[in-house]
């Protein structure tokens, strides 16, 4: 509390606390009773922020953010969807156990305010497993996985960097297959949409009721992005290479009133 | 008078292009075409070198744009009757010859044509098939209206028949129709009346008109055309058989001091084109082209010749035939020629079909037309353009020329020259024209 309001000079604090046995995000005004703040349950603060932003039009918001939140926020800032000047990050280091679960290679926030940085994980058994398969086996593997999909959109709804209000995967233009499961294109399109912004928070995989190893897919494609264009999502400096010229020049980008 | 008015004489590709450029530029254009349809010789061609683009396919849209254009007035089946005045005001008298048809009523349904009893050799098909005395020259004709040929119509010549009038439900037939005279004022006149094909039968050594299986290149063009007299099947006239071999004779009456000294410029290439097409229509036919110099100077022309030689096995023989006569019997042709060099020998070769590439000569109208316009022709009978700085200016101010009327050139050159004529007309109209 003191950290948020005194040191970071914020007017609000966005954190998670326990209520009736559940951990949920909460927005606290300055001076409000914090209650039982808990930081042990990962929550997609970036996503919450975009929602909060719709109502809280001014004032500075302090956010309890893990490294992946920090990178997700960077992606949203690049797209003018968040105003960096209205944000103060309270760096939260993930526990070793959490890092292992996400096979996280970059767990340490730029400033650590809470907890201690764990070692980045070095091996990634699931990804290695998929990449070890022959093309045909890999195909069968993913088809079996995607067959389990029941098109609940959990992966998109809980994704911190999915910012469309209306997802094109909901209409039939690109995914004409009727009903459930939605077919291959659904997952391929979602994958390429994530390619230049996925911060590997693992929320999609956690949210998936069918246990489709989505995080592995994301991680593999992020490796491709790095190989092809030397690009890493969450980098606050660089624009997506998919939008820029070969020399990486973006076009002018500024806001106008109509 | 409205000085932004131009008369274009001739509705071939050159006349069409000049008219379109001027009309798009906002000027009123009167196109005076002597035949019942615009299109000119290009309409008769099957394909065009060196891309083998279908001629009608690329020409037809331009013909139609001409007909549709708000600034273009088509006077087809018409001729210049008189020209007075001088730049910037020419008084032009146009005679619209009677078609004996009320064109506002004619729907070109063709009932009259089917019923007409009189057959006349078709000019468009180079005499290879017949049209009727009431006719539309070719399927893509613009305008699509029928015309009565008064020299052959029985009603006109013998006052009997009248079948067309009976069958015409539109009531468009009018045997008493007379020529209409249209008087207009124009600031400039563009001559684009193209060329005629020399009548090679006048040169007995080539056997045209004597041997059935000696034809002209323009006749072959029709034979090769899908919409032509043989529906694109390669056949020789004598017995309708597909020829086993085919010879082309270049420079018939051209590059020849006794007839026409100049080079017609396009024969080498169209002969090459026609031999490629002939091979495509009849894969087994053996082809030889007898020439003096193989003049392939345009974009892609040399490659085109190589393609004919290497891919289609066309034989190029540098020689001028000594004599051509009918082979034994009714069909085929015997040709005597000498191969070049001291080692050269006299040869006799038999061809199932022999194609002459006659000189393309100035239109026979050039004489009267040049007098009417008070401009000079050159020694060869083309319109003289002495001023290099203004290549489309004739010797008469405000009288311009483009296309083959100015001398032998191919289609792209005719087209660019036509646009040049349009530019020059615009210069004269807007700025008075640098002398």
């Amino acid at each position, binding site marked *: 509390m003191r950290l948020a309001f005194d040191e970071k000079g914020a007017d609000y604090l966005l954190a998670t606390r326990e209520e009736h046995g559940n951990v949920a995000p909460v927005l606290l005004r300055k001076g409000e009773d914090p209650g039982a703040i808990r930081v042990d349950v990962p929550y997609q603060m970036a996503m919450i922020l975009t929602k909060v932003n719709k109502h809280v039009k001014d004032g500075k918001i302090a956010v309890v953010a893990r490294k992946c939140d920090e990178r997700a926020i960077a992606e949203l800032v690049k797209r003018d969807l968040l105003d960096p000047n209205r944000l103060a990050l309270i760096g939260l280091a993930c526990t070793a156990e959490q890092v292992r679960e996400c096979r996280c290679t970059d767990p340490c926030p730029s400033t650590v305010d809470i907890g201690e940085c764990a070692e980045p994980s070095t091996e990634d058994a699931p990804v290695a497993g998929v990449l070890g398969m022959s093309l045909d086996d890999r195909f069968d593997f993913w088809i079996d996985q995607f067959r389990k999909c029941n098109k609940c959109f959990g992966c998109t709804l809980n994704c911190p960097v999915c910012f469309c209000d209306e997802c094109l995967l909901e209409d039939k233009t690109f995914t004409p297959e009727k009903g459930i499961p939605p077919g291959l294109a659904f997952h*391929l*399109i979602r994958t390429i949409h994530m390619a230049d912004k996925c911060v590997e928070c693992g929320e999609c995989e956690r949210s998936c009721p069918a246990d489709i190893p989505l995080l592995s897919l994301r991680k593999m494609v992020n490796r491709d992005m790095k190989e092809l264009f030397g690009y890493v999502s969450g980098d606050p400096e660089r624009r997506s290479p998919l939008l820029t010229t070969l020399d990486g020049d973006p076009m002018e980008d500024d806001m106008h009133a109509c | 008078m409205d000085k932004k008015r131009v008369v274009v004489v001739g509705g071939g590709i050159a006349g069409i292009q000049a008219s379109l450029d001027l009309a798009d530029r906002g000027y009123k254009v009167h196109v005076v075409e002597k035949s019942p349809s615009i299109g000119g010789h290009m309409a008769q061609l099957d394909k065009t070198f060196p891309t083998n683009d279908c001629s009608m396919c690329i020409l037809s849209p331009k013909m139609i744009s001409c007909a549709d254009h708000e600034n273009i007035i088509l006077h087809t089946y018409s001729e210049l009757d008189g020209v007075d005045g001088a730049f910037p005001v020419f008084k032009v008298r146009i005679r619209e010859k009677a078609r004996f048809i009320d064109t506002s009523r004619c729907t070109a349904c063709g009932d009259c044509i089917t019923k007409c009893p009189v057959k006349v050799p078709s000019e468009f098909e180079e005499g290879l098939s017949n049209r009727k005395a009431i006719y539309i020259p070719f399927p893509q004709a613009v305008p699509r209206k029928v015309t009565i040929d008064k020299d052959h119509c029985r009603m006109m010549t013998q006052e009997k028949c009248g079948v067309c009038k009976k069958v015409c439900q539109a009531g468009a037939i009018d045997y008493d129709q007379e020529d209409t005279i249209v008087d207009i004022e124009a600031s400039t006149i563009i001559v684009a009346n193209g060329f005629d094909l020399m009548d090679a039968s006048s040169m007995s050594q080539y056997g045209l008109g004597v041997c059935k299986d000696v034809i002209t290149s323009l006749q072959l063009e029709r034979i090769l055309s899908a919409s032509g007299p043989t529906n694109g099947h390669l056949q020789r006239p004598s017995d309708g058989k597909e020829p086993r071999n085919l010879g082309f004779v270049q420079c018939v009456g051209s590059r020849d001091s006794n007839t026409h000294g100049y080079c017609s410029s396009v024969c080498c290439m169209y002969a090459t084109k026609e031999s490629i097409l002939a091979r495509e229509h009849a894969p087994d036919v053996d082809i030889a082209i007898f020439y003096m110099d193989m003049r392939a100077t345009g974009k892609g022309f040399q490659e085109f010749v190589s393609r004919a030689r290497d891919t289609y096995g066309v034989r190029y023989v540098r020689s001028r035939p000594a004599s051509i006569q009918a082979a034994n019997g009714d069909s085929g042709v015997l040709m005597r020629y000498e191969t070049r060099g001291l080692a050269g020998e006299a040869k006799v070769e038999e061809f199932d079909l022999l194609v002459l590439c006659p000189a393309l000569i100035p239109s026979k109208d050039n004489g009267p037309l040049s007098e009417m316009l008070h401009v000079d022709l050159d020694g060869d009978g083309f319109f003289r353009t002495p001023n290099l700085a203004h290549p489309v200016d004739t010797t008469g101010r405000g009288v311009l020329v483009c296309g083959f009327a100015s001398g032998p050139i191919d289609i792209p050159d005719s087209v660019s020259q036509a646009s040049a004529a349009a530019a020059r007309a615009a210069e004269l109209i807007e700025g008075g024209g640098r002398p």
Partner: protein
Amino acid sequence: MSEFNPNILAFCCNWCSYAGADLAGVNRLQMPPNVNVVRVMCSASVKPEYVFKALSQGIDGVLVLGCHIGDCHYLTGNHRTAKRIPLAARILEKVGIDPKRVRLDWVSAAEGEKFQHVVTEFVEDIRKLGPNPMREVRF
């Protein structure tokens, strides 16, 4: 069973590749009849979504043709194409679809022969790969 006849979708940009394809036609350059061309104004307007859609629905291969880099009628449009399409191919590979089923190439308005060459070669490659496995998959 008759030999496998690939069913291929091609996107050609209006200014270079489509013109190149026309030139191939004008020159009567013969090539296998497996490639069906869709005209787009610029190769950069080809959404990777189209590629994924086509392949998921059993199309055997997708060809994306544009102007050479530097010649794009829209200045740098094809710079985007040059990155999107290769990435799409990588993604396909990750889910077990051979990336060779997608080919990006540059064909200018003057390159009728190149168009013929690319088409012939691509059809051959797809023949070697065999039918798109998605043809057999029913979700």
